[in-house]
């Protein structure tokens, strides 16, 4: 059977502090593609984070997330964001996304999340308008959960405040 992207599920939330996309990872795939085009944050200037969900769909909050991000802005010098052993992942989606007309485009690849003998890896690229102005910002991001455990899903959460709206689509890559 021919394969490419196989739609698994879509998850949405309105006025939520976080969005859990449960049971979106399985033994059927090693690689997943996540697209996000609709996010409105209630608080300005806050980061969008993620956590993997364990085999019970409970968020993994251990200090086991590393990330490295190239922050590319249309109006100033590019910069780097990096961190080790954090309790959340960062950089896959964006930061301080204005609501109304601005929106976001994020493509996230997740590798080996369901493999209990492997870390779960992330590579991502996004494009958004930052809340503090009207300038474009985009990230090239990598991340990892340094815990060899089965992950059944992923959670998106805010640094502060909530999501007025959020929609996440998950695909398996065949």
């Amino acid at each position, binding site marked *: *059977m*021919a*394969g*490419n*992207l*196989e*739609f698994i599920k*879509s998850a949405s939330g309105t006025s939520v502090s976080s969005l859990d996309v449960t049971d979106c990872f399985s033994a059927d795939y090693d690689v997943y593609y996540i*697209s996000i*085009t*609709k996010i409105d944050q209630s608080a300005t200037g806050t980061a969008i984070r993620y956590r993997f969900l364990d085999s019970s769909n409970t968020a993994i909050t251990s200090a086991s997330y590393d990330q490295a991000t*190239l922050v*590319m*802005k*249309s*109006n100033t*010098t*590019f910069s780097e964001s990096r961190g080790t052993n954090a309790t959340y992942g960062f950089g896959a989606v964006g930061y301080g996304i204005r609501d*109304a*007309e*601005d*929106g*976001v*485009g*994020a*493509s996230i690849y997740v590798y080996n999340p369901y493999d209990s003998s492997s870390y779960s890896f992330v590579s991502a*690229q*996004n*494009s*958004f*308008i930052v809340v503090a102005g*009207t*300038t*474009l*910002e*985009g990230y*090239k991001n990598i991340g990892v959960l340094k815990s060899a455990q089965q992950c059944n899903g992923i959670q998106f959460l805010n640094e502060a405040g909530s999501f007025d709206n959020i929609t996440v*689509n998950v*695909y398996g890559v*065949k």
Partner: protein
Amino acid sequence: MPLGAARFGLLGGVADLGKLELIETQTITTSSSSIDFTTLNESTYNVHFVTFNNLQHTANDKELYLRFSDDGGSTYETTNYQYAEQHCDTDGAFGAFQSTSAANIFLAVNLGFNANESGNGYFYLYNAGDSSKYTFVTMHNTQIKDLGTSYYRSVFGSGVYAVTSTINAFRLIPKPTCNIDNAVVSLYGIAES
């Protein structure tokens, strides 16, 4: 039913071909001033995926631009773009391309035109069909640059057409003015169900 999305069980056992649904492929073999895609099915897809490979210009050291249209390809917008892109070159030159007020988004920069000096890559379009949102782009290419040296380059980054509108066509166009000799460009929609 979207192109390529045959459902198992509804059509007597035909396999589901997946949600990366091919809309159109254009193969350029004669000199062309631009490559236009005027059917995006933007009311169906929030996310589009475009690949280009073996793209060669008719002149050396030119850029490949991306521009959008909201009138079906009758005209293409030349204002209100922003981009922020990183280039990584094998001659050691890493740096930024960025603009808050541009006439286009870059897909390739300083592209060579000799044999095998092609541009290749992909980009995603987000929210093209949403008239209440800007249209965003993420891109990544791999190319040979020729400023007399044929070094290898990669460019990745993001862009935006910062006007709320329904984008229903896009154009790949080389600048400063030259033509495209060869290219294969494929447009896909990513279905959400």
